[in-house]
């Protein structure tokens, strides 16, 4: 009965490779997000989708491309991985409907290590 699930949990890869992280939520939420947590635990939003439409696109290299096939899924594809991409990536969802900002529900994270 996992609410927000993301795979894989760990991802170790070499520089220059392309990788994807998948996320699914079964909460019926309209909005999904990707956050990046660096080694100092600082959390920064990367993207947000509301009903499959991109609504937040922070200053993220265009090597990062989110894709939302439906409102329950938000995947993150990363091209040409660099050492600095090493971090923990969290998927989250919320029942945002534009006039309120409800709490975020997080997945357990994907620890990406680029060597």
């Amino acid at each position, binding site marked *: 009965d996992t609410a*927000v699930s993301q795979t894989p949990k760990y991802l170790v890869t070499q520089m220059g490779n392309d990788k994807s992280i998948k996320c699914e939520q079964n909460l019926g939420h309209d909005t999904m997000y990707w956050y990046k947590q660096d080694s100092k*635990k600082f959390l920064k939003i990367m993207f947000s989708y509301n009903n499959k439409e991109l609504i*937040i696109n922070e200053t993220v290299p265009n090597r990062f491309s989110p894709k939302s096939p439906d409102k329950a899924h938000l995947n993150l594809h990363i091209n040409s991985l660099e050492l600095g991409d090493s971090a923990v990536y*969290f998927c989250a969802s919320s029942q*945002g409907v534009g006039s309120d*900002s409800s709490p*975020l529900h*997080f997945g357990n994270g994907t620890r990406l290590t680029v060597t």
Partner: protein
Amino acid sequence: AQSVTQPDIHITVSEGASLELRCNYSYGATPYLFWYVQSPGQGLQLLLKYFSGDTLVQGIKGFEAEFKRSQSSFNLRKPSVHWSDAAEYFCAVSPRGGGFKTIFGAGTRLFVKA
């Protein structure tokens, strides 16, 4: 600029002692306010939230927080800490009227000693 400040990078508390984690925010108008907890290897879990009304809010696991508008603060408290409370705690804000952009503080790591 919008920001959330958690002045304590880490705090050590004895088991059974009381706890207060500080949070201050800088925002154009009173935002929605949240506290999240992150255990090692886990995602963040909501402890409590403030939207409106009573400025003292109760959360899960015996936590509470008090919103003080005059101080732009939303401090988290617990009267008696348990060893299982050792974790990273994040204060967060998000704008009223939508926007979906939650901003997080840098976190406070709580250590609990026996």
